[in-house]
């Protein structure tokens, strides 16, 4: 799992309001060389949460990134020293074994062979509700796929989710 992915992952357990960023517990970090592509980095830079990236890189053993997010001039400039550091942190560090920890609940999501397992247990999943027209637009909880089928005709918007 590379840090570019970690920067996009958040904890989706029901009730959690601030599940980003996940803390990294690194057990095995591997460095794999990737072709340097400044255009790709410039494009992705706008979407990256900088503080999360710096913190994550540090947990993986790379502390070369500056604390504060550099402004546009540094990115657009021909000087590639910063982009090279960003490239290394974002794309070349792989978390092979370890865990990602939810900052709010402390729940650990294991990372095995470079793949984070973000599957939630049943009690952690958000409840699906539908608006039951018979009961005056009251949200009714859908407990099982069978409920969903039965409610199909009397409910609207079967994809609502509540924490």
């Amino acid at each position, binding site marked *: *799992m590379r840090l570019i*992915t970690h920067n996009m992952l958040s904890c989706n357990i029901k009730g959690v309001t601030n599940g980003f960023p996940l803390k990294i517990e690194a057990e095995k970090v591997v460095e794999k060389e990737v072709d340097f592509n400044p255009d790709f980095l410039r494009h992705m830079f706008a979407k990256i949460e900088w503080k999360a990236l710096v913190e994550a890189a540090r947990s993986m053993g790379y502390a070369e990134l500056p604390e504060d997010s550099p402004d546009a001039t540094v990115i657009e400039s021909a000087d590639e020293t910063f982009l090279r550091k960003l490239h290394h942190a974002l794309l070349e560090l792989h978390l092979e074994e370890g865990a990602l920890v939810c900052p709010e609940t402390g729940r650990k999501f294991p990372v095995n062979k470079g*793949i984070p397992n973000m599957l939630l247990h049943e009690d952690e999943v958000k409840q699906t509700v539908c608006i039951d027209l018979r009961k005056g637009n009251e949200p009714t909880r859908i407990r099982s796929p069978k409920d969903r089928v039965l409610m199909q005709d009397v409910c609207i918007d079967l994809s609502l989710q509540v924490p």
Partner: protein
Amino acid sequence: MEDLIILYNLLLHTLLFHSAVAVAVAVSVASLFGEIYPPRSFRRLPKTLFLTLTLNLQWTVMSEMTSRTADILRVSSHREVYEPCDDSFALVDALLADQTNLINHDPKVCMEIGCGSGYVITSLILLLKEKLPNVHYIATDTNQIAARVTNETLQAHGVSAEVVCTDIASCLEKRLAGLVDVMVVNPPYVPTPEYEVGMEGIASAWAGGENGRSVIDRVLPVVDRLLSEKGWFYLVTLTSNYPSEICLGMRKRGYASRIVVQRSTEEENLIILKFWRDKDEEGVDKETSSESFVKQFSRSLSSFMEKQWR
């Protein structure tokens, strides 16, 4: 005689470059002729050498052309992971047919939900990587073993993508919202009893509940949130999934749609749908103008033939 053999082989390879079997047959035929008419003197030797070289060249050329999609022999497998089948091939054919459009579309982030063996995401990467080396690819699957197998398939083809084991895209929705430019989904679409949906193991790869729509109906709102303004969405469905209903539902969310590939096998009537946001007028124009005459003709011919069959 040898000249005729060489010409015949060249012609055969050129006409049937998709068929590895035809090449194997051609090679064996050529070698058979080589045995019946062995070089009796030094004069014949150059011709036989030329014959062998030509065959090698054709073989290399053929493999180069077929490396546009994932090599089925290099796709990793596991008993709990769905192996590439007609639906996977149809989806990849749809992507192949749209290859030029995809390249012109210039996506920055491509995603597959339900990657299984990794055949489709690998094919997508191979399709795009030559002209577009700057794309970020993400693949998700609920099956942990499938995620691992996808990684192995990607490695076997020398490409890489981010693989995450999650339910549809639940952990990525917040941060990736509005960023995905190309979304590819081959969902569990087989109509089954509701209790079979989401069971552990390989059954979750096909069990689709009533009308095969359980998972599709859950995927559509997620895709709507993840797709960017110019996002394109490819979906595999059966006629049993009532694709027209799916298209209507997506229309209400602001998507136009069309059928990219329609394929009838013995067991299934596959329909590969493509969705894009309708507000993008430019996108609509691109869609209609890129249809070549041959494609339109072959599609009308196939629908005509289907009607004749019925």
